[in-house]
């Protein structure tokens, strides 16, 4: 096989495109978890975002309304989670699981009338520059706005958590809600905000799938990507840059194993299909093996309910 630089560029571009929903959902969930809340409803919020985006696009014809509507839908469904876990102090794990089951069910119900309808074409940016630079052009140009946002998000998230006052407040709430509360921080308010933000990002991740990546609606179309996003957050030890690396490895191996099959590499296909899961975990565990750093970035109060608030 001739290795053409543009061919490599094309492969990298498709790897990045497949990593987008994982990055969006993981970075959203990361903020939620950094505030001490474990929301296992990522898959549910993503699928709600997917159907809301697709339905709004079909009904209103406006892509902008659809994208923001999907994020709003993510916010609305995560409000249920926030109300239950923060106001009614229910168990995070059970409530999150319920949210996923609820999301899958209600998306199927809303989606009944949207099966078999083709999606609209989503505009891409810088398409004119697509053939200018070898290797880099297919990577840099000709993608949707959501694509660029997704690759900026880990850096924004990292900056937000490390360098901004609000970021520090979020971390304080996640590490020690009691101390934060004694400092006059409204723990419940901060956690509400972080949960809703996570919902918005998961909604956007779902909309990317149903509107841009594979523009169609079918039931369960998120196909477990929410669970992978959740796992990425944990294995990256709550570090947004490592989420980016993990998502790229996962997306990359998924795509490269298809290429290996097509070339005819004689490795059992079942092994190839399991490869993304195995390697992503191994790599993330290896790059995050510094236990001191893990302790620093793990939100200590993760998943614990906080009662003492006003």
């Amino acid at each position, binding site marked *: 096989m001739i290795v053409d630089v543009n061919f490599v560029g094309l492969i990298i571009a498709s790897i990045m495109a497949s990593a987008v929903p994982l990055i969006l959902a993981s970075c959203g969930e990361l903020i939620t978890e950094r505030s001490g809340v474990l929301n296992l409803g990522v898959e549910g919020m993503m699928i709600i975002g997917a159907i809301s985006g697709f339905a709004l696009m079909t009904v209103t014809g406006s892509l902008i309304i659809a994208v923001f509507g999907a994020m709003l839908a993510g916010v609305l469904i995560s409000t249920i989670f926030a109300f239950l876990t923060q106001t009614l102090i229910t168990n995070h794990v059970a409530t999150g699981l319920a949210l996923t089951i609820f999301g899958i069910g209600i998306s199927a119900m809303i989606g009944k009338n949207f099966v078999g309808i083709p999606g609209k074409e989503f505009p891409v940016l810088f398409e004119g520059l697509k053939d200018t630079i070898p290797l880099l052009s297919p990577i840099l140009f000709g993608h949707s706005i959501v694509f660029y946002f997704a690759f900026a998000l880990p850096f924004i998230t990292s900056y937000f958590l490390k360098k901004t006052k609000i970021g520090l407040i979020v971390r304080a709430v996640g590490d020690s809600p009691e101390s934060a509360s004694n400092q006059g921080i409204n723990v419940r308010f901060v956690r509400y905000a972080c949960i809703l933000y996570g919902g918005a990002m998961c909604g956007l991740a779902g909309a990317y799938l149903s509107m841009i990546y*594979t523009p169609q609606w079918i*039931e369960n179309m998120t*196909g477990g990507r929410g669970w992978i996003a959740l796992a990425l957050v944990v294995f990256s030890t709550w570090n947004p840059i490592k989420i980016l690396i993990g998502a790229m490895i996962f997306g990359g191996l998924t795509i490269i194993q298809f290429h290996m099959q097509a070339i005819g590499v004689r490795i059992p296909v079942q092994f190839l299909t399991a490869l993304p899961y195995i390697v992503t975990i191994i790599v993330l565990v290896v790059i995050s093996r510094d236990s001191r750093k893990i302790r620093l970035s793990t939100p200590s109060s993760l998943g614990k309910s906080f009662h003492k608030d006003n």
Partner: protein
Amino acid sequence: MHKFLIRSFVSSLVLLFTLTVAAVAKDVKAAFVYIGPTGDHGWTYQHDVGRKAVEAAGFKTTYVEGVPESADAERVLRQLANSGHDIIFTTSFGYMNPTNKVAKEFPNVKFEHATGYKREHPNVATYAARFYEGRTILGTIAGTMTKSNVIGYVASFPIPEVIRGINSFTLAAQKVNPNIKTKIVWAFTWYDPGKEAEAAKALIDQGADVIAQHTDSTAIVQMAEKAGVYAFGQASDMDKFAPKAVLTSVENNWGPYYVDRVKAVANGTWSQKDTWHGIGDGMVVISGLDSQMPSDLQAKVKKLQADLASGKVHSFTGPIYDQKGNLMVAEGKTADDGMLAGMMTYVKGVEGDIPK
């Protein structure tokens, strides 16, 4: 007391009347058990289109979706049989044993199992479609339309149904173009749009300019449209998802069979049988041909379609060799149904190994 007696007399009269009416004009009720959600726009969706045809013919229908192929299936079947359904269609291969088991307990209920071969009791019938006939047509088109001579094929799981499709497709493509190569990628899913799109993208990046699929979603034809290559619709007409890419689709058309069988129950003429219908009986339908296909190819395809329907042409006509060069079907012979049903070897010309 007096009042009570009158009341109970009247109500028992009403009850008796209802029962009599029910016994005289007993509606036939049909139930359908689905493996996936009806919103998959693929396998289950097409069965549900068939169910709606039964409904349109004036019968009552029920369906249960997302039923696992396990002990759960037995429970669902028993419940459907207990709740007054006269005929139950079980629409996935894995329901074979549960269907036969429950059929034994309910001899008065008719059971119809799709894609299986076990008919252990007189009230169990089986049915399937000869989708491979459709793939003979797709292979003919692919072999003619390809310029790179590389044809991509996204497969789901290594079962006879899928292997048979790959073989039938490749044999037909080789017949019109001996230089073609069929590259197969196993997605190990029936539907996951993201994964299917990635598999198709990998094949396209490796030079495939026609993509065939044996998975259910429309993601592959959409990817083909984006990349400017050709593709074929699966299970339903997918033309509107990718008007430029889709050359034609092979549609699963269960409706006529379902209506037929439910009517047979109503008339009391239902009997056990094994049905394997193809293009000829309308269970496999070829959608409209795209105008990008040259007119001589269109004419050829129409003729092939007619010949497959009449039985003049068989998808597996010898000589057929397997990958190692062993003779599978002798010259002038055609593969029998037993061989087709258990086909687990690639024919010569298919690249790679079947995953074990």
